[in-house]
Every structure is written in structure tokens, then in C-alpha cells.
């Protein structure tokens, strides 16, 4: 008796979590509009075709990497360099994957595949916030599915409109410039910490300086140089901290 009551309760909790996931995602929909449209337009410009644009949005489901891949193909980079650059942008998802993994102790193989399939910045942030609030993990998967149920079709729709309609918009609108602008909007909040800011400044300057490097390898080089600059800043800050603590002990 009590078992069925518990499972009914659990089911109700899961349904509520799914609905909460849908609800909390609704404010995330407008920001997807310009980015999704532009990714769709860029895919067509890159020669992927309208259906290729949709397939890329559906199976990569990663706006930044889609934009990087298409920008690189448009600028004439070799296919493997374009793909590699897109994957480097997605490496941050390995950090998300590592952060979420310990919370999935009881998850089945199928659930793990779904967790991985829809792991993007927004869905990760939602789960991170719920985890930090100490919410029960039983309903986390349902909440996650709720967020994915909104964001994935919406992303597909925006990319599709961009690919089928947006490519016919006048070039004078310079719609493609929303790609760098949306990257600026993504990266600015990361720059509050000094190592990240240093990585960005050095990476940006290197990106411009090495722009003419053959095979469009400039971006990957800029990423490496910027990352090293960030690590160096880490080391400098740590040493300054250590000196300060030494001085504090002496006084």
C-alpha cells in the first residue's frame, strides 16, 4: 500500500519537476532568437545547405561551435581545422560533464546518454543551481528533460528559420555581425576574474596577430597562447598571495 503511495508521490514530484524545468526555461527563449537565426544563415553561407543547417543544429546542438565551424568554412579553412576549432570551443562541456557525473550515481545508461545529449551551458547552469540549492536528485532528470523539451526544439526552429528564410535577408543588415556580438556578450561576464581577463586579452591580440597564419590555425594558436597567459597569471597571483602571507607572518 505505502509503496504505491510513495511511487505515486515520486511520480507527481517528477511531473512537477518537469513542468518547473519547462517554466524556468521560458525566459531563455528570446536570447536564442538572434543567435539561432544567425547560425542558420551562416550554415547556408558555409555551403552546408538548408537541411545540413538543421542537422547541424539538431545533432551538434551547440551554437558557439556551430558558429565557429561555419565561420571557418566560409573563410576557406580546411575542413578538419574548422571541425577542430569547433570542438575546442566545446571542450568546456567536458568540465560540465565532469561536474555532473558524480550526481548521476543511480542513472541508467539511457539516462546518461540523454544527460550528455542535451548538455549545454543553460541546461548545465540550471542543474548546477538546483544542485547547489540542495534539491533532491530524484526529480533532477525530469527537470532536465523539461529544460531540454523547450530549448532543443526552439533551437532547431530558430536555425531552420535562419536557414530557410534568413539567408534571403538583405546583406546590408549585416546580420552576420551578431555572431561576434553574441560572443562578446557570452565572454564579458567571464572576465571579472583576472586570469580569465588576461587569457581573453592575450588570446584576442594573438587572434588578430596570427589571423593570416596558414590553414586558419591562428585561432587554435591564439587559444593556446591565451590559456598559457591565464595559467601564468594564476601563478603570479598565487606567488603574490604567498608573499603577502609570508610578510603577514613576519610582522
Amino acid at each position, binding site marked *: 500500500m505505502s509503496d504505491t503511495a510513495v511511487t505515486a508521490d515520486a511520480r507527481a514530484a517528477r511531473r512537477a519537476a518537469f513542468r518547473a524545468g519547462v517554466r524556468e526555461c521560458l525566459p531563455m527563449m528570446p536570447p536564442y532568437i538572434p543567435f539561432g537565426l544567425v547560425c542558420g544563415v551562416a550554415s547556408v553561407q558555409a555551403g552546408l545547405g538548408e537541411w545540413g543547417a538543421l542537422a547541424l543544429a539538431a545533432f551538434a546542438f551547440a551554437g558557439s561551435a556551430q558558429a565557429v565551424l561555419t565561420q571557418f*568554412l566560409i573563410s576557406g579553412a580546411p575542413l578538419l581545422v574548422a571541425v577542430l576549432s569547433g570542438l575546442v570551443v566545446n571542450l568546456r562541456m567536458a568540465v560540465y560533464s565532469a561536474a555532473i557525473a558524480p550526481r548521476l550515481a543511480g542513472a541508467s545508461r539511457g539516462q546518461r546518454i540523454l544527460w550528455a545529449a542535451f548538455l549545454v551551458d543553460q541546461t548545465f547552469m540550471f542543474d548546477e543551481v538546483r544542485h547547489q540549492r540542495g534539491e533532491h536528485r530524484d526529480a533532477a532528470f525530469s527537470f532536465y528533460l523539461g529544460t531540454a523539451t523547450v530549448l532543443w526544439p526552439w533551437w532547431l526552429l530558430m536555425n531552420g528559420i535562419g536557414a530557410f528564410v534568413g539567408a534571403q535577408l538583405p546583406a546590408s543588415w549585416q546580420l552576420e555581425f551578431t555572431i561576434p556580438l*553574441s560572443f562578446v556578450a557570452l565572454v564579458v561576464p567571464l572576465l571579472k576574474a583576472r586570469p580569465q581577463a588576461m587569457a581573453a586579452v592575450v588570446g584576442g591580440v594573438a587572434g588578430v596577430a596570427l589571423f593570416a597564419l596558414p590553414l586558419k590555425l591562428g585561432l587554435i594558436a591564439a587559444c593556446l597562447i591565451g590559456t598559457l597567459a*591565464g595559467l601564468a597569471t594564476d601563478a603570479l597571483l598565487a606567488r603574490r598571495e604567498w608573499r603577502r602571507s609570508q610578510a603577514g607572518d613576519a610582522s
Partner: protein
Amino acid sequence: MSVDSLGSVNGWIAIVLLAVGTFIIRFSFIGLLAGKTLPPRFARMMQLAVPAIFAGLVLPLIVIGSHGFALDERWPHVIAAIVTGLVAAWRGGMFLPVVAGMAVLHGILALVA
């Protein structure tokens, strides 16, 4: 290799490679390496690689025109990007900063023309 010569087969290869590679990255610790943890130094490098690669990607798109580095040609785009950055720092999100930047860009271009 120009856009025209990117055959449809090559396009689909790019799509499949990016999709499969991205899934492997996402599935890495959730499925493939379940139970393993990320070495802290590697995690830190990936945190720093994100701003580095975005800046390395963005700055050329802003300042490099049709004939290489050209601030005299691209200054409206530079100002638009600064406005987007300021709005993003102030309010966060993506919609408002991007719309503000595009509005400034077209405002300047309309004034200059």
C-alpha cells in the same frame, strides 16, 4: 578552398564530425570515464581556454575588414562591440546586448552615409 567548392559530401562530413566529437566530449565523464575525475590542472586550463578562444575568434571578426586589419574601415563595428560588452557587463544575457550593439552599428552607418 572557396565556399562553392565545399561539396555537399564535405559539408555532411563536417556536420557528422562536429556532432560526434561534441557528443563524445559531453558523454566523456558522464558515461565513458564514469567514476574518474578531471585532473584539476586540466579543468583549470579548460576554464581559461574559453575566454581565450572566444576573444581570439571575436577580435579578428570585429577589426579585420575585407583587406586585413583596418580600423579606419571597421571603427563602427568596434564601437558596436564595445557597446555590446558594456550592456552585457551591466545587464548580462544575450538578447539586449546584441540588439544594442546592432542598433549602434546601424545608427553609425546611417549617420556616416
